């Protein structure tokens, strides 16, 4: 079964056409994960936990073991897998509604325990799958189906900054925010994912990468404008960069 030939498509990605909208960030991040898994030669050891959200069908595209989790419970499920299979690479893949709203408790406590898992967090500032509602990360003033007049801080609170929040905990090993705002951003995202996967492989502990991600459909713009929204508007609220490296906090 094992092929040594070089494909343009990563070995860890299936050839099934993706269902994502044009310009969506999910497909890009799937590909990055698949590339990192291939580079590290761990396809047969990798276990992905898919969220409830647009990426629930991630398993159709990933050519390694994948399971679903209930909405928001992905880090608890990942914990349940990793604790009994400590030599496998277990990552959870989650959207902002999944990770920062309904699954906030599981997110924080998995990080606080320092679970030796990797979390890839797709922050697209909206709920995609259910039709563009307000997410915990929706920008102040941003219009969504459930904030038709724009997000109002007085009644809806400001956007939740997950990297900053998790950085208050002592146990995480690596926390980083990147943006899919162009080729350079994609390269950084890939490097960050590789960093947390390697950290897990080496038993260093909890890694968290937040990927600011385009969702042209519900950010209500074209794919090109979506890249700008991610790189300019979102990055203004969610500063890019390293928050935690090697278990040490990085001063901004």
């Amino acid at each position: 079964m094992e092929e040594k030939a070089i494909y343009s498509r990563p070995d860890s990605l299936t050839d099934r056409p993706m269902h994502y909208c044009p310009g969506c960030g999910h497909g890009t991040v799937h590909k990055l994960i698949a590339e990192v898994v291939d580079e590290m030669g761990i396809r047969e050891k990798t276990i992905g936990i898919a969220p409830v959200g647009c990426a629930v069908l991630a398993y159709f595209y990933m050519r390694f073991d994948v399971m679903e989790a209930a909405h928001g419970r992905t880090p608890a499920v990942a914990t349940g897998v990793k604790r009994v299979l400590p030599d496998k690479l277990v990552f959870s893949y989650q959207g902002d509604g999944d990770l920062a709203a309904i699954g906030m408790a599981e997110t924080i406590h998995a990080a606080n325990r320092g679970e030796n898992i990797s979390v890839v967090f797709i922050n697209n500032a909206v709920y995609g799958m259910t039709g563009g509602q307000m997410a915990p990360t929706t920008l102040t003033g941003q219009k969504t189906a459930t904030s038709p007049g724009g997000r109002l801080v007085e009644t809806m609170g400001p956007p939740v900054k997950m990297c900053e929040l998790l950085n208050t905990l002592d146990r995480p090993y690596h926390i980083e925010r990147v943006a899919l705002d162009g080729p350079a951003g994609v390269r950084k995202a890939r490097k960050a994912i590789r960093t947390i996967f390697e950290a897990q492989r080496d038993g260093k502990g909890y890694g968290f990468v937040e990927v600011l991600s385009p969702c042209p459909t519900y950010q209500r713009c074209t794919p090109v404008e979506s890249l700008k929204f991610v790189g300019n508007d979102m990055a203004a609220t969610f500063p890019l960069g390293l928050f935690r490296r090697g278990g040490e906090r990085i001063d901004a």
Partner: protein
Amino acid sequence: MGDRVLMTGNDAVGEGAVRAGCDAYYGYPITPQNELTAYMALHMPAKGRVFIQAESEVAAINMVFGTAAAGKRAMTSSSSPGISLKQEGISFLAGAELPAVIVNVQRGGPGLGNISPSQADYFQAVKGGGHGDYHQIVLAPDSVQEMHDLTILAFELADRYRTPVMVLTDGRLGQMMEPLVLSEGPAPAPPDKPWAINGAAGREPNLIRSLYLVEGELEQLNIRLQKKYARISESEKRWEERDTGDCDILLVAYGTSARIAKGAAAEARAAGIRAGVFRPVSLWPFPGERLRELASQARRILVVEMSAGQLIEDVRLSVGERVPVDLEGRMGGGIPSVSDVLARLRALDTEGR
């Protein structure tokens, strides 16, 4: 024979899980099951197994979900309000066909209720407390010995049928002490789990899911589940009978209520009333056929339960119009006394003559 020891029911469940080869336990504090969580905290890590005090019951059942998907034996326990929180997870376990053991040490409700023993979660347990068409196997011990034995059986049935299994008990059984004989290990090895997600080494990737969006796919899953439930109904009905051979009044009860029913039936016999006891051990599948047979010979049925009348619905469904069915029930953490039940038996006895 295994060792004879004195233990609380909660500890006996814990020791049963340990001896059944439970790989991981996930819990969250709630009375009256705290002894069980503490037992696991003490004994699981010492054996190199996993114990986590989760951040909530929701997290705990989802950790169970992950461990079960990884092909290992997992258990969680809680009491009524916490079991309510686990229902989404139990539905997911049923949908994804994963084996797991859930222990409910029931307390009084609704709401925060109280911490007294209760049997008011019967409907939730046997009718499917979560969403969708599913069942879990429900086992109801009535002694500390059975707390131990049925926990071990729960792991075996969960693996055999790839289904969640609940041990439905209550605060009195959980906290009382009784002598019991511990099972002699080691437990039989779990079956092979070629479906588990444990790294696609030398095989095609496995996928564990309960989402089926393609038209008709979910119905196919449901048809498969219903066939499985039919198989379980065929093979896994369990019950106990006492003095049913010639009985005039049949008491039907499970768990703590069954102990009281047995006590009352013995006193009634001594007083010349021919009482017998039918105790369902599996609440789902419910041993209704045997109950129907007994109903054709008894003159009356008295259901004893610590609820407003939940088990009684399955009793009525089973016996139909054959005999009158009455309830001796207490609610909100109240426990029927032997003398209450006896008085009821006396009244029914004279009424019918």
